[in-house]
């Protein structure tokens, strides 16, 4: 009996195990391995020394982190109130679906759509002309890059926050009011802290992918911001310096791990940790 259940468990593990080996462990190992080779296929640490000594790369890293941070902050500022509002609606599942719908459309299609909207003769400039401001350069600015990136990331932030609000027992809100808390005090001291795990999950889902955005930086941002994602693409496809590209990849992976640790579950308050 025991061996049977064990064998069954192994059987179910096969697809996951294959996936893990082929798409997680193998790529990670390959990237790590590649990062120690120079252009002429010799083992070297020079990729790392170059990376950490080059102002260009450091600036790129800072840029990536900075823009990912901006995108995350704007996404959060829009998503929390939206999730809170949606959660209070009567047919909330339907309204939530409308928020999720755009994620089913390919990101490139959406990017091209924004090129149309933001172009010289696009809808945005037509509107600006109409209200008398006159056409502006919108496309290929940092602002438009952040705008579009935020737009694309919002659903990934709204969902976990919405779920956290959904899991929050109304009894906590009642208890807070019962003890004399106003609406704002209840929000600040009970609702927000208890939905913080949702916010953290949202930050993970937004910040980490934003670190390596590169299509948007080119199509919408006009390559004014060179992020690590762009650099990796350039090294692999243009300069063919796979070693350097892999090194940047390793740096990105380390950055992701740091973010995950920072936003991970903290120990419960007080007493001994479980």
């Amino acid at each position: 009996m025991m061996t049977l259940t064990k064998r069954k468990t192994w059987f179910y593990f096969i697809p996951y195990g294959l996936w893990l080996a082929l798409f997680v462990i193998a790529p990670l190992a390959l990237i790590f391995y590649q990062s120690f080779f120079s252009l002429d296929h010799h083992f070297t640490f020079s990729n790392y020394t170059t990376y950490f000594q080059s102002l260009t790369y450091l600036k790129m890293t800072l840029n990536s982190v900075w823009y990912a941070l901006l995108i995350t902050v704007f996404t959060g500022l829009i998503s929390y109130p939206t999730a809170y509002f949606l959660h209070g609606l009567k047919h909330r599942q339907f309204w939530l679906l409308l928020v999720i719908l755009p994620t089913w459309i390919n990101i490139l299609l959406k990017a091209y759509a924004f090129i149309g909207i933001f172009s010289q003769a696009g809808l945005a400039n037509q509107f600006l002309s109409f209200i008398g401001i006159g056409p502006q350069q919108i496309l290929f600015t940092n602002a438009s890059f952040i705008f579009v990136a935020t737009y694309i990331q919002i659903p990934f932030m709204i969902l976990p926050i919405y779920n956290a609000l959904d899991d929050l027992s109304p009894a906590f809100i009642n208890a807070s009011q019962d003890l004399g808390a106003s609406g704002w005090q209840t929000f600040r001291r009970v609702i927000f802290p208890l939905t913080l795990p949702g916010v953290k999950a949202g930050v993970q889902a937004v910040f980490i992918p934003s670190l390596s955005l590169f299509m948007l930086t080119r199509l919408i941002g006009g390559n004014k911001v060179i992020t690590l994602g762009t650099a990796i693409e350039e090294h692999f496809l243009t300069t063919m310096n796979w070693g350097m590209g892999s090194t940047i990849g390793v740096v990105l992976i380390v950055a992701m791990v740091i973010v995950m640790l920072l936003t991970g579950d903290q120990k419960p308050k007080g007493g001994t940790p479980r």
Partner: protein
Amino acid sequence: MTEPIVELEQVTKSYGTHTVLKDISITLEPGKFYTLLGPSGCGKTTILRTISGFTSVTSGNVLFNGKRINEVPANKRNVNTVFQDYALFPHMTVAENVAFGLTLKKMPKDQIAERVANALKLVQLAEFGDRAIDELSGGQQQRIAIARAIVMQPQVLLLDEPLSALDAKLRREMQYELRDLQQRLGITFLFVTHDQEEALAMSDEIFVMNNGEVLQSGSPVDIYDEPINHFVADFIGESNILPGKMMGDYQVAFGGHQFECADAGIPAHEPVEIVIRPEDLNLTEPEHAKLKVTIDTQLFRGDYYEIAATDSLGNDWLIHSVNPAEDGETIGITFRPQDLHVMRYDEKEEEFDARLETYEGTEDDDLDET
């Protein structure tokens, strides 16, 4: 009579066409232990929520210290609630939970610490201030929920089935403690439960509810001894309820015989129901008996035998007896006139009280000593 602290005046609550509270009028006096008792869905928690401010009333008035508070929001009312599932904030320690309401009042820190310590001491968890909520047992969480409410020094404490999640033994302990706490604090408790034993054990006064109405209110003894109708008699304790007919004052017929009883003021020949509590029935020799019954089954309950029997007319009888009987045996039962309680069909509480007044005189006074 002391000034009432909470009054509901003809309170009605409807959701669309569904009425959950029908013309409720109740009065709570300071320093007493009140219980709202009824089956689930009878509206007892809704009454609690109209007082705490979480539910608005459709019509009628909610008064607090004589002032109408219908429009006062929950966070501005001087009542606090112990919630059914405790609703302790999981992201705060025990002490932070208890201090929550006080910190909102911008009270000085040392004063908060002192009051939190006192409240924790009162619920016998003085050492638990630094614990996390999920480290506490159900009974401990229960006490912290009480501490968090009483630290606010409310004039009225509302308790929404606070013991329902505890096991039987702990529940009995908490019954003593709650009663004791209420007497020490001297504030009004309004306790909601569907457990009639709990209500009888703790309350100064019980409101028995069903289908959004208060059927009967009174001391536990009053309600147990003189239930107003079939529902109350059946819901509170165990009872034998038999159809009968009033033959005149202090005379009632049921089970094929006429008996002396303690009820009057009912027109002769009116159909009525008779309640006899199983513990008021005594087994005896058939020749000395008021009624003869045949024993069907019996269960040993530890301190008594619970005997199910049938009389010659087919009525079922439940008898609590210290001594066992034989299955299938025909045996006599006796009872005293005052053990019979006669209930009229569709009698309202006011009519019932008025009728009792006419022949009971000052008999009610001795109940206040209990």
